[in-house]
């Protein structure tokens, strides 16, 4: 049974249709990517799941029924616009937030200390939040999201403001949570992280769901008949290849419809003047898919950063 079921949900703010007929399901033990340009309706969809906003139409089923106050304790939410009590010591602030999720004080402190260790913040436990760096505050907010051990985690831009080392730490944490059977919804613009972590995705554009399913299936469906090869020697003309262009130190070869990647590989391996260093079926990156999907009818790529603002941020 899905942990989250969003069925044909719509939400309008005044003249603006923030979300239109969006549906999705999130299962236990998976990381689900909620993607889309700014203003696409991702945050509004999340807020409707959490009952902060009520949908104009459609149904949202959380953990087998309508969202209610008791279920809030079973959810960890890292909002896009986030903050902590700046004047409080870090440990006290995180323990208080965990207590609000129904954890006893002693258990909350134990859990918080564990995550402070895991995210390398233990030495800052007694510092005031305002004295922490932006990256440290970001990690602290992630701890506030997970300290009460929720079944469902919702991260809105979890890697914002983190350096590569801490991105790695947070990714490890998310993978641990998935392995332990928790469901994770991740909303982000960082496509490389989605590719690395997500099992399934929903791409939202202008309030509507435009791509939904397993990440591998989506990438396959966008893949043309192409390969990427890296060779030592002059590649020259290759039978069955319609076009050839360099790509990141390799060559991307577009094949005609009668030629398979295996045939090209056999052909290249049979040439004594070439040494094949790398060979792969060329699947489009999620970046490419994202841009191609949100490109408007005129063929222009919208300015993703200056696009319409999130419905309510």
């Amino acid at each position, binding site marked *: 049974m899905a942990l989250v079921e969003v069925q044909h949900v719509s939400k309008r*703010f*005044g003249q603006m249709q923030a979300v239109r007929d969006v549906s999705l399901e999130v299962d236990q033990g998976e990381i689900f990517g909620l993607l889309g340009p700014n203003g696409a309706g991702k945050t509004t969809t999340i807020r409707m799941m*959490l009952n*902060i*906003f*009520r949908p104009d139409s459609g149904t949202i089923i959380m953990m087998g029924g309508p969202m209610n*106050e008791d279920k*809030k*304790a079973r*959810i960890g*939410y890292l*909002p896009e*616009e*986030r*903050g*902590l*009590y*700046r*004047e*409080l010591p870090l440990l006290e602030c995180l323990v*208080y*937030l965990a*207590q*609000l*999720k*129904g954890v006893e004080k002693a258990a909350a402190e134990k859990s918080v200390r564990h995550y402070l260790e895991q995210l390398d913040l233990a030495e800052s436990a007694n510092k005031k939040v305002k004295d922490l760096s932006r990256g440290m505050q970001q990690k602290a907010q992630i701890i*506030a999201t997970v300290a009460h051990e929720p079944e469902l985690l919702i991260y809105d831009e979890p890697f914002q403001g983190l350096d590569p080392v801490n991105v790695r730490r947070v990714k490890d944490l998310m993978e641990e949570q998935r392995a332990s059977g928790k469901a994770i919804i991740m909303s982000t613009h960082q496509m490389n992280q989605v590719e690395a972590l997500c099992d399934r995705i929903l791409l939202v554009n202008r309030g509507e769901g435009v791509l939904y399913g397993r990440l591998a299936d989506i990438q396959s469906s966008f893949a043309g008949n192409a390969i990427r090869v890296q060779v030592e020697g002059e590649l020259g003309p290759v039978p069955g290849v319609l076009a050839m262009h360099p790509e990141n130190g390799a060559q991307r070869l577009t094949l005609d419809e009668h030629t398979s990647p295996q045939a090209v590989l056999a052909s290249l391996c049979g040439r004594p003047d070439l040494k094949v260093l790398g060979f792969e079926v060329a699947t489009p990156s999620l970046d490419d898919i994202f841009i191609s999907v949100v490109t408007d009818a005129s063929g222009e790529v919208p300015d993703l950063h200056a696009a319409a603002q999130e419905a*309510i*941020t």
Partner: protein
Amino acid sequence: MRNMLTIARHEFVTLVRRKSFLLMVFGLPLLAMVMVAILNVSAPTEEDMMALLLPSAPDQAQGYVDEAGVVSRVPEALAPAFVSYPSVDDARRAVAAGEITDFYVVPSDYLDSGTVISYSRDFNPIGAQNQVTAFRYVLMANVAGSEELASLLWEPFRLEEVAVQGEQTEASTEAVSYWLPYALLMLLFMSLTFATGWLLQSLSDEKDSRMLEVMLSSVAPTEILAGKTIGLGAAGILQVVAWLGTAGLALAVGGRGLNIPEGYSLGLDKLLLGLLFFALGYVLYASLVAGLGALAPSLRDASQATIIIYAPLFIPLWFINSIVNQPNGLPAVIMSLVPFTAPVTMLARVVRVAPPAWQVALSVALLLLTAYGSIRLAARLFRTQTLLSGQPVSVASLRSALRGD
């Protein structure tokens, strides 16, 4: 409920740990106590106060000629200022020599006529009264036979009020009826002002630090509001109690007390009733301010608007005469049933009479209902896009907030 208490405790502890709070709660009263102590050191004793009531010695020496033989001794405090002369001629010579400025003659028939003749070198209509007063006291002390009796005759009315327990006089309850509502209103108003100020500050801080969305994803808006109201209200009451306690201590140290008739008692039932109305009044007004805090785009805007919300609290004071004189009259009854004026009006009535039980019950019920509705309303405002976006309030957004969209 559990989260509400967690929030209340958090808000209370966080606030009372602040240096600014500690300074205001304990620093200011301490300063006041030091000032009272300083004033007390230089304050006159009861004897001093009595002495102030009695005439002082004239600035320049005066003479007297006692032809009636009544002045056997001059009171000690005045003795240096009065010189006795055997005859009018001797006294005149003393005036001419500059030894005295003026003198009195007590004629031989004084005890029959009560007449005293005053001789002055320079008649001064302004200063004459004080000079005459001092010699009048000299004569009184001698005619009465003792200084104690003279001082009693001079100030025969040193009032101390005592109320017989259970038989409070009309006058004493009337006086208490006047000032007690004022005092309780000030207590309520001070608690409210402090607590709602902190409440607005707390909401504003959470808006600024973007904590509200995290809070709303964890706790019901009603619990957030109720928790903050209780926690900060407790801090407000702590502050007022600390101030009152310090004031009482300062008065005790200074050897003074409040001007309450001795033996006067409000009675436990009335006290509890007063506390109930105090608490309900606090919850009602605090929740209104919280709703305002949720709507207002900034702390400054919210603070400016609170005075409008508090206005109904003061309405009973405009009618205090009517309430005190006719505690069961129509205006008093109406105002004690309307929730916004009920806390102060009912307190004023309770001091004077025992209001009919149905009125108390109805008033409590209406206050409870309104306070509950007010909290619910404010809680709805909490969860709105207005709160999350910090955008200015519009009719549409307000309507949307009230619908709970």
